[in-house]
C-alpha cells in the first residue's frame, strides 16, 4: 500500500523502523497537496519550507533513537488555530494579512511532540458555515465528487484527510464543524467534551460551544492525537483540570454489554432513508458484537437548532467586536472618522454569513429582547442538557446519523441560510450540552459516504473511541479512498 494511504499509527511504526524518513513522507505529501489544490482548494497556506525543516529535525531525533510516538508525523492545521510566524486567516478577508505572533496551545503541543505541519486548511469564514462556501478563499470541494461540498466549517481539513493529502488534521466544532464534514467526506472526526482541549489561540466564534478536535482516517489515530492535545491549560480558564487518560490503551474495550441508545427523534422525518439504512446497518453490527440497543427520546432536541441560533450568534457578535480595524486585521481606505473606520472596515472585511450572524446576535442581545431570546435559549439549552443527562442514566452512548443527507451540491443551500443551518440538526445538541461526539464512516449512498454519530456523557471519549474502533475492526468503510486519490 502506498505511504499516503497509511494511517498515522502505521506511519509511526514505519518511521521508527526507518522504512521511510519523515522528509520523504513530507515531500510525498506536499507533492500530493500541490496536485490536489486546483481541484479541492483544501488549503489556504502550504508551509513547504517549514515542513521540510521540521521533518529533517524529526529525522535526526528518530535517528538518535529517543523519539516520542508522534515525531516526524505530518499534521494539517485548520486555519482557525494561530501558528507563530505563519499567516492565520480564519477563512476571512479580515485576517488575510494576519501573521499570528504565537502558537495556539493545540499547535504548540503537537509541535513539541515533533509533528510536522504541512499547512493551514481552508474553512468557512470564522467557522460559520456548513458547506465551506463562506470562505474568503473560495469553497473547498468534496474529493468524492468535486461538484459537491465537503461540509463545514472544517471542510478543508476533512477534504484533505479524505483525499489522503495528510493522515490527520486539527479541526474545531461549534455546532457540528468536525462531525458534519467528517460524515460528508468519509473520515473519522471527534469533538471532545467542552473544556477537554484548550481553546487558547483558537480564534473564538462562540466561546461556550467551541471545542478543538481531530479529523483522521481511524478512531485509533484520533485516540493517538487526542492524548497529545487534551489537558488543562492555564491560558484557557474554561479548560478542565482533569487527568488525560491513555486513549489508545482504552481502544480494546469490548463492545459486548454496551448499552446503545438510538434517538427516536433523529429517525423522524427529514432523514434521507438511504442514510437511515446505513445507520441501521451499523447498529446491526454493534448488536452482533453484543451491544444492547434500545430506543431513547429527547423530546426537546428539535429545539437545538433554534436555541443554537440565539446563543451562537450572541457570542459571535461579542467575540467579533475585537475586529475593529485598529490593532490588527483589515482596515478600510481613507476613513472619514472613527465610526466610518469601524463600520467600513467591518462591512468590507467580513463576508455575508459572518455579518448575518453578527446582526442576529446584536439583535437578540439588544435592549428589550434579551429575555425573550437569549435567556429563553439558555433555558432551552439547559432543558436539552437535562434530557441528555437523563438518557445517559439509561444508556452508555447514543448513536444516530451525523447528517440528514449525503454531501449536497455547491450552491444548493446558499440562497436560504435557514436551510443551511438545518444541516447541523443532529450535531448541535452535543455542543449545547458540552458532550463529546464523534462521526465515523458507516456506508455509502452511491459513491458518497455516510456518517454514524456516537455521542457520550461528559469525558467519555475513551468509550466513544473504543466503540468506534470496534466497528472499524469489523468494517472497511473508513479505508475507502475517493477515486483519483488512491
Amino acid at each position, binding site marked *: 500500500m502506498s505511504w499516503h494511504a497509511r494511517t498515522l499509527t502505521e506511519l509511526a511504526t514505519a518511521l521508527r523502523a526507518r522504512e521511510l524518513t519523515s522528509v520523504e513522507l513530507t515531500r510525498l505529501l506536499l507533492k500530493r497537496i500541490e496536485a490536489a489544490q486546483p481541484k479541492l482548494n483544501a488549503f489556504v497556506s502550504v508551509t513547504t519550507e517549514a515542513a521540510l525543516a521540521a521533518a529533517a529535525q524529526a529525522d535526526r531525533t528518530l535517528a538518535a533513537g529517543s523519539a516520542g510516538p508522534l515525531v516526524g508525523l505530518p499534521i494539517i492545521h485548520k486555519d482557525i488555530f494561530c501558528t507563530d510566524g505563519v499567516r492565520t486567516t480564519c477563512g476571512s478577508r479580515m485576517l488575510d494579512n494576519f501573521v499570528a505572533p504565537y502558537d495556539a496551545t493545540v499547535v504548540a503541543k503537537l509541535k513539541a511532540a515533533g509533528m510536522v505541519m504541512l499547512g493551514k486548511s481552508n474553512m468557512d469564514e470564522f467557522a460559520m458555515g456548513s458547506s465551506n462556501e463562506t470562505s474568503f478563499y473560495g469553497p473547498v470541494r468534496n474529493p468524492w465528487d468535486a461538484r459537491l461540498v465537503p461540509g463545514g466549517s472544517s471542510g478543508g481539513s476533512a477534504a484533505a484527510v479524505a483525499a489522503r493529502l495528510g493522515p490527520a488534521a486539527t479541526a474545531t466544532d461549534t455546532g457540528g464543524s468536525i462531525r458534519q464534514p467528517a460524515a460528508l467526506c468519509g473520515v473519522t472526526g471527534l469533538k471532545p467534551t467542552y473544556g477537554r482541549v484548550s481553546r487558547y489561540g483558537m480564534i473564538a466564534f462562540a466561546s461556550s460551544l467551541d471545542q478543538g478536535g481531530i479529523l483522521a482516517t481511524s478512531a485509533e489515530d484520533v485516540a493517538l492525537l487526542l492524548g497529545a492535545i487534551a489537558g488543562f491549560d492555564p491560558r484557557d480558564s474554561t479548560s478542565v483540570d482533569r487527568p488525560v487518560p491513555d486513549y489508545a490503551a482504552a481502544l480494546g474495550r469490548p463492545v459486548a454489554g454496551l448499552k446503545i441508545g438510538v434517538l427516536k427523534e433523529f429517525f423522524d422525518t427529514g432523514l434521507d432513508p438511504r442514510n437511515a439504512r446505513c445507520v441501521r446497518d451499523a447498529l446491526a453490527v454493534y448488536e452482533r458484537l453484543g451491544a444492547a440497543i434500545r430506543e431513547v427520546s429527547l423530546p426537546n432536541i428539535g429545539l437545538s437548532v433554534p436555541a443554537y441560533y440565539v446563543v451562537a450568534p450572541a457570542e459571535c457578535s461579542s467575540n467579533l467586536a475585537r475586529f475593529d480595524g485598529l490593532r490588527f486585521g483589515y482596515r478600510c481606505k481613507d476613513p472619514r472618522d472613527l465610526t466610518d473606520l469601524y463600520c467600513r472596515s467591518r462591512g468590507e472585511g467580513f463576508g455575508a454569513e459572518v455579518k448575518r450572524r453578527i446582526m442576529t446576535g446584536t439583535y437578540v442581545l439588544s435592549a428589550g429582547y434579551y429575555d425573550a431570546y437569549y435567556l429563553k435559549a439558555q*433555558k432551552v439549552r439547559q432543558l436539552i442538557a437535562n434530557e441528555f443527562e437523563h438518557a445517559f442514566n439509561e444508556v452508555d452512548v447514543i448513536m444516530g446519523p451525523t447528517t440528514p443527507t449525503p454531501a449536497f451540491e455547491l450552491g444548493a443551500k446558499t440562497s436560504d441560510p435557514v436551510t443551511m443551518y438545518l444541516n447541523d440538526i443532529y450535531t448541535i445538541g452535543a455542543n449545547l450540552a458540552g458532550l463529546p461526539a464523534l462521526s465515523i464512516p458507516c456506508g455509502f449512498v452511491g459513491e458518497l459516504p455516510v456518517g454514524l454519530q456516537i455521542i457520550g456523557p461528559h469525558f467519555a471519549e475513551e468509550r466513544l473511541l473504543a466503540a468506534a474502533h470496534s466497528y472499524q475492526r469489523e468494517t472497511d468503510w473508513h479505508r475507502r479512498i475517493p477515486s483519483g486519490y488512491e
Partner: protein
Amino acid sequence: MYDSAPFFLQFANSIRLMDRDEIAAIAHLARLELGEAELAAFSESLTRILALVGELDRADTAGVAPMAHPLAGLSQGLRPDEVTERNERDRYQGNAPRVEAGLYIVPKVIE
C-alpha cells in the same frame, strides 16, 4: 437529491418581519456598513432566522434555570494576579494597519 424537511419547523408563531430601517439600526449598533442590496437581503434572511428562533416559545421552561456553564457544577478557576507574559509590543504592532512611534494611529477623535 433528497429534500430534507425539518421535523420541527412549523413556523407556528407569528413571523416578525424585519424591515429595512430596523436592519439598518441593528447594523449601526454592530458597526457594520451595509449597502442597500445587503439591507434588503438581511431583511429577508433575518426574518427567516427569527421565525426559526421563535420556535423556542414552544418549549415549557418553567422552573428551568438558564445554563451558566456546559459542565454542571463547574465554575471557571482563578489564577493569581501576576504578570506571566513578556512584553512583545513591537511584534504585535507588526500586524497593525497603522503604527507610528509605537502608537496605534486612528482618525482624529476629538476636534
